């Protein structure tokens, strides 16, 4: 079976826990590299390496502000991943909606109702 988008770059980029942490930090607003280094408690070279991967796949953008490099999240590139999980979520929700109805019926039985309709 064809294995769709999971192996595309953006998916691989977010598979790394540290890179996900970076994205979570950037989701709250743009940050300079130093700030990310301090918050992640990682060495500057490692953070830079992760940022480079994220930049290459377009998940983050960078701009220079004086002597600082400031990173921000590019949410648009995260959307395919978000959609991927959302579709899976929806397929479970379809199941749960049916389960809700069944549970109403079981509750009715426990109360001793004979069930009036659905």
């Amino acid at each position, binding site marked *: 079976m064809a294995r*769709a988008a*999971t192996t595309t770059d953006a998916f691989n980029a977010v598979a790394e826990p540290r890179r996900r942490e970076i994205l979570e930090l950037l989701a709250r607003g743009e940050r300079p590299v130093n700030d990310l280094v301090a918050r992640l408690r990682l060495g500057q070279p490692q953070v830079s390496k992760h940022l480079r991967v994220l930049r290459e796949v377009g998940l983050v953008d960078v701009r220079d502000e004086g002597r600082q490099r400031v990173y921000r999240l590019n949410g648009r590139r995260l959307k395919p991943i978000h959609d991927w999980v959302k579709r*899976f979520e929806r*397929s479970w929700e*379809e*199941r749960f909606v049916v*389960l809700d109805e069944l*549970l109403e019926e079981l509750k009715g039985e426990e109360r001793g109702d004979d069930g009036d309709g*659905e």
Partner: protein
Amino acid sequence: MTAMANSGTAVVTLPTDTQILITREFAAPKHLVYRAWTTPELIKRWWTARRGEATVAEVDLRVGGKWRYVMVTDGGFEVGFHGEYREIVENERIVSTEVYEGMPEGEALNTITFTGTGERTKLTILVQHSCREHRDAHIESGMESGLQDALDLLEQVAQSLG
């Protein structure tokens, strides 16, 4: 369809590279959610989400006991799952393995917990895969049935036009 104003909405997250976490609240007491989850006749009613017919729902609810569910979609596509119970705490928790028969090498360990008091239950399903590839394939396969639905629908529409 009756409106279920008080129930929640499923939330899926990926806590680590190898896990899937599904959570959902129900407007029913724990023992009923547990019953619906573990009784074959009831499983057959909700598990397919009305996408097809559940042809098999076998539940040998004891540690070391096996389970197997099979559904046939309206388009004739058969999907089977099976596994073994590892831990059972009535109305509280079920730990079991799960294998999607279309991908037998990808065995997962599921921890299902039922928490809450009174008329509300929070259900959590933590799916632990052995590697990210299997976890991702699991999410993919969850959508293949959705694709199958779309194809089935397309077929119906095509037939109605013919």
